[in-house]
């Protein structure tokens, strides 16, 4: 806080089609300080990091480093100016050594020959200098590294050429306590050396451990920057939430019917010991931050990922789904998170996409009845108000909201009684959102059991009868519609198991 900031962003604005991702955001990264960057999913943290890294060009505003205005067109420009953003997902070349991965793109060579001896020696020296020598072996083949070690390779790679500004994007998400200690030690050392550090994390506990300042974003705007010493966990949560809720969709609760879906102690490769249930006519929201394991749980219920232990019961019968086909047969329909990648055949028509799961019912002797199919498709285009010039229009030409309605229509046509909707309104404009909310409401009113995954808290509060909050593959707690607030959900979503006393009442 003594020196002038090493990096300053002024009025940074970034627009995407239909969304203002960043709106006049200011950010200071002072030398010798760790600045935590916080905000809900979609608050604009990732976009800001991508602008710092030169992945995106801002539509407005400027970056100032060392008194000069800088523009980064590529990550390479940022690197040369002494700024490194350490990605959350490490990029590793699998079948070469750790040492080669560390110096990727600038391997030490003489006359075109890379000496493995020199390479190993340099790598060992750099690892020792940074304090990671007991965690990484320069001779190890990268493919055999654990996820945590890969993350460390990414970190070491960024630190080798002594950048002055370092941005960490959720660096601890795959690290164990032991490795986190080593990481924090190096971050403290970098701070002492007068570097400027930005630290994005969803873990409140870590922010209080390592950060000096905290900067909070919400809906692409800067909420404010505070000194960590001056604020509490509650204050941070309050800064992160607080959207205008007056415009929000609020649905009437219905009388819930019998229980149709029950998970007991379900453990998969990604989630542990998850128990929950959904009744007919009920909307249960799975809340949590990105990476909490919610989508992976959804895929497991839908039969696409193996359930290692515990049981999934639907309509009173224990399921043993080996494929999505098995789950669909008992009446489970999944609208996955990545609509374009996982749900739609983009280069095919609206008709093809709606009828995809019901061709069997429409067929006789293996031939699909054209008349029945057109009738069915027309019915759902009308019922869900899908705006398309015709049923033959390619789905890729539809807007996000109408694409989502096509996915919903597929499961309505299939008459699925258990619907798992993963981020049903992601990438959907405001008008279409309201329509999708009323479709979901209608489905519940007609007796479907709905498990909805959503990262948008107003949506969760407006639609759900009950809310189950997950973090790191575990259920952290549940809230009823009456007791749920944005603060409580967010606090549960960020409460590490080790620090539950920090949850505001």
């Amino acid at each position, binding site marked *: 806080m003594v020196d002038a900031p090493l990096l300053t962003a002024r009025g940074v604005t970034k627009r995407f089609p239909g969304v203002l991702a960043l709106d006049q955001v200011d950010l200071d990264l002072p030398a010798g300080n760790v600045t935590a960057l916080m905000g809900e999913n979609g608050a604009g943290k990732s976009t800001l990091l991508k602008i710092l890294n030169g992945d995106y060009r801002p539509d407005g505003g400027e970056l100032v480093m060392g008194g000069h205005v800088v523009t980064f067109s590529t990550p390479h420009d940022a690197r040369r100016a002494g700024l490194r953003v350490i990605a959350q997902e490490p990029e590793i070349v699998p079948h070469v050594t750790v040492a080669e991965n560390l110096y990727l793109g600038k391997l030490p060579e003489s006359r075109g020959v890379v000496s493995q001896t020199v390479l190993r020696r340099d790598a060992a020296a750099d690892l020792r200098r940074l304090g990671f020598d007991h965690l990484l072996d320069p001779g190890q083949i990268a493919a055999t590294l654990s996820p945590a070690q890969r993350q460390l390779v990414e970190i070491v790679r960024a630190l080798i050429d002594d950048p002055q500004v370092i941005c960490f994007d959720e660096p601890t998400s795959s690290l164990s306590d032991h490795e986190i200690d080593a990481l924090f030690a190096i971050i403290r050392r970098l701070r002492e050396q007068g570097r400027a550090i930005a630290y994005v994390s969803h873990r409140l506990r870590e922010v209080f451990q390592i950060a000096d300042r905290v900067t909070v974003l919400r809906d692409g705007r800067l909420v404010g920057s505070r000194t960590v010493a001056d604020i509490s966990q509650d204050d941070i949560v309050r800064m992160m939430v607080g959207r205008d809720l007056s415009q929000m969709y609020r649905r009437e609760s219905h009388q819930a019917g019998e229980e149709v879906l029950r998970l007991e102690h379900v453990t998969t490769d990604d989630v542990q010991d998850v128990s929950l249930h959904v009744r007919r006519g009920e909307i249960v929201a799975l809340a949590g931050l990105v990476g909490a394991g919610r989508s992976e749980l959804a895929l497991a219920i*839908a039969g*696409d990922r193996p359930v290692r232990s515990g049981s999934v019961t639907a309509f009173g019968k224990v399921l043993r789904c080996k*494929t*999505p*086909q098995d789950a*669909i*047969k008992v009446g489970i329909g*999944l609208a*996955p998170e990545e609509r374009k*990648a*996982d*749900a*739609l*055949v*983009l*280069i*095919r*028509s609206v008709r*093809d996409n709606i*009828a*995809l*799961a019901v*061709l*069997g019912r429409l*067929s006789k002797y*293996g*031939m*699909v009845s*054209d008349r029945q199919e*057109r009738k069915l498709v*027309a019915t759902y285009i009308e019922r869900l108000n899908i705006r398309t*010039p*015709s*049923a*033959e*229009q390619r789905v890729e030409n539809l807007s996000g909201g109408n694409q989502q309605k096509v996915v919903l229509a*597929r499961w309505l046509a299939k008459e699925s009684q258990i619907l798992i909707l993963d981020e049903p309104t992601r990438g959907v404009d405001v008008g279409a959102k309201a329509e999708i909310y009323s479709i979901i409401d209608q489905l519940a009113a007609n007796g479907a059991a709905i498990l909805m995954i959503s990262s948008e808290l107003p949506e969760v509060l407006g639609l759900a009868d009950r809310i189950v909050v997950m973090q790191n593959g575990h259920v952290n707690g549940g809230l009823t519609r009456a007791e749920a607030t944005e603060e409580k959900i967010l606090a549960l979503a960020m409460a590490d198991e080790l620090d539950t006393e920090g949850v505001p009442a």
Partner: protein
Amino acid sequence: MTTTKDAAVTPAPAAPSPSTPSAARRLMHTVGLQNLSLILAIIVLVALIGSQNSSFFLVSNIKTIGTAVAISGLVALVQTVVIIMGGIDISLGSVAGLASVTSAMIFTATGSNAVVSVLGALVIGSICGLVNGLVVIYGRVTPLIATLASLATYKGIAQLVSNGRAQGYTGSDPFYLFLARGSLIGIPTLIWVLALVAVVIHLMLRYSRVGRNIYAVGGNDTAARLAGININEHILFVFGLAGFIAAISGLLITARTGSGQPVSGSEGLEFQAVTAAALGGAALRGGKGSIAGTILAVILLGVLVNGMTMLGFNPFWQNVAQGVLLVVAVVVQQLSSGERRVGLPK
């Protein structure tokens, strides 16, 4: 939906527009830009060749073109199906050769029993295709590599069983004679076979549940899987079908030459088939393509080869011309997809 009936009978993907479009636009919609350009190319080519050599228009020459494309056309039709599913099968020429040589050998061994020899060849072809499918699914080998391996293997087997020589003599059998030289209402049997297979595959792709699922698997296999489609069953079926149809073209080779040919006549069929499918608008990344387009491309290639012969080009130019056409067709496809031009294409 007033144009529903039109869309149902026309082969090209029809997108009826709610307003009343002009006649030209309606033609574009029902026939499609791709097919229209193929038709245009055929017309230009025919005019060019015809102006240089008027015997090009003789009925006998048109029949020659028809019978010449029948064998490669069959393989092109089924290659289109494989490509729509997102795969590729470059072993089909070898399968045709193996089917040809075994049909003649079975014919000889059973004392000139045409029925057994035809059935035997079809079974062998189907097995070859199914093996490809099994290797792809359970060995996790990409279709290109799996069928490159079987291209060599099946060709080798055909050469082994025949010792590399033509086998048997079917030239006096009435059934094989009818296949090779017969005709119905003035149209050669070979063309009938191609037309029949084209219609069946077209109906399958467009109207059957399996065909519709093949488009879905090729267009987005994750979406297909999550919608409850058994992807493996479809892959196995398509590779099996490919082997079956390649065996039919092998039988036509036997019929035309009067004997079983292990390599001659079948080598390079897979290349012509991929070229025709790509020219016909089948997207090599899957999910898109039509039998109408492939048939037009087959005709275009047939006219081109025939014209080059008539105009006295060195026959080696044929390979150059087809190779250039294949790469141009794919370049056009890829560039229109707007992918970044960095690194290896997906």
